[in-house]
C-alpha cells in the first residue's frame, strides 16, 4: 500500500487548510438552508426528502474532505461504498417489509 499518501508536500498542506475552511463555510450555508427550508410549507414527505438530501450532501462533504476519503487510497472508498450499500440494503428491506404489513 502507498504509505506516502499522507506525507504530502508543504504546498498540498496549505491548500488542505484552505479547502477545509471552504468546506466548513459550505457546511454552515447548508445548515442554514435546512433550517430555512424547514420553515416553509412543504408536504411532510417532501420536507423529509429535502432534509435527508441536504444532510447527505453535508455528510459527503465531511467524509470526503474532513475524513480525507477524497485523498485516501482507492480501497478506503471501496470499503465505504460497500458499507453504505449494506446500510441502504437494510433500510430498503426493512421498509419493503413494513410497507406490506397489514
Amino acid at each position, binding site marked *: *500500500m*502507498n*504509505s506516502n*499518501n*499522507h*506525507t504530502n508536500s*508543504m504546498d498540498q*498542506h496549505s491548500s*488542505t*487548510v484552505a479547502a*477545509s*475552511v471552504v*468546506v*466548513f463555510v459550505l*457546511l*454552515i450555508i447548508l*445548515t442554514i438552508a*435546512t*433550517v430555512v427550508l*424547514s*420553515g*416553509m*410549507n*412543504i408536504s*411532510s414527505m417532501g*420536507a*423529509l426528502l429535502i*432534509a*435527508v438530501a*441536504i*444532510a447527505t450532501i*453535508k*455528510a459527503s462533504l*465531511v*467524509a470526503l474532505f*474532513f*475524513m480525507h476519503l477524497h485523498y*485516501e*487510497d482507492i*480501497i*478506503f472508498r471501496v*470499503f*465505504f461504498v460497500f*458499507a*453504505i450499500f*449494506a*446500510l441502504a440494503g*437494510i*433500510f430498503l428491506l*426493512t*421498509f419493503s417489509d*413494513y410497507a406490506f404489513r397489514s
Partner: protein
Amino acid sequence: MSSQTTSGAVTEHSEHYDEVGTRLGFWLFLFTELFLFGAFFIVYLVYRTTYLPDFQTASNQLSTVIGTTNTIILLFSSLTVVLAIHYMRKGIKKMALTFLSITILCGLAFLVIKSFEWGGKFDHNLFLQLRGNIEQGLGSPLLTPGSSEMLPMGQVLFFGLYFIMTGTHALHIIIGLIWMSVLWVWIYQGKLKTDRAGILENGGLYWHLVDLIWIYLFPLFYLIA
C-alpha cells in the same frame, strides 16, 4: 515488510508501523458505528411514518435555535480537528495543541447546551421512565399509561427516541472528548511525536463520525415542521 517479532512493549520508533493499515482498521470500526445508529434511524423512520402528526407536535417543543447552535459548534469543532492534525503533521506542536484545545472546548460547550436542553425536558416530565417507577406511581405523569394527562403515544415515542438517540450521540461526544484530552496531554508531554500523528488522525475520524451522525439527527428531530 519486516514484522515485529517481539510482543509487548512498544517503545522504539524504529519498529514497523503501518499507518495506512491502522487507519483502514479504524474505518472498519466506524462502519460498525454506522450500523448502530442506522438501526436507530430505522426505528425513527417507522414511527415517524406511523405517528407523523404527533412527531410534528412533539418536535415543536425542541428549540431550533439550540439545535442550530449545537450544529454549528460541532461543525466548527470538526474543522479545528482537521487543523490540529494538519499542524501535527507539519510538526508545529503549539498550533496542534491550540486547535485541539478549541475542539475540546467546543465538545464541552455542546454537552453543556445539551444538558440544559435535557434539563428543560426533565422539568416537563418528559424523560424516559422505568417500568418499576410507573408501577409504583413514580413515573412522569405525561408518559405514564393510564394517567389522564398522558401524552399521545406518538409523542411518547418521539421523546423516547429523542433521549435514546441524542443520548447515545452525547455518549460518543464524551468518549471523543476523553480521547482528545489524552492525546492533548501526550502531545504536550512529547509522548506523541509527529511521526505517529496517525493516532491523532484516528481520533479525528471518530470525532468527524460523531459530527456526521449529528448532521442527520438535527433535521430529523428539530426541524419537523
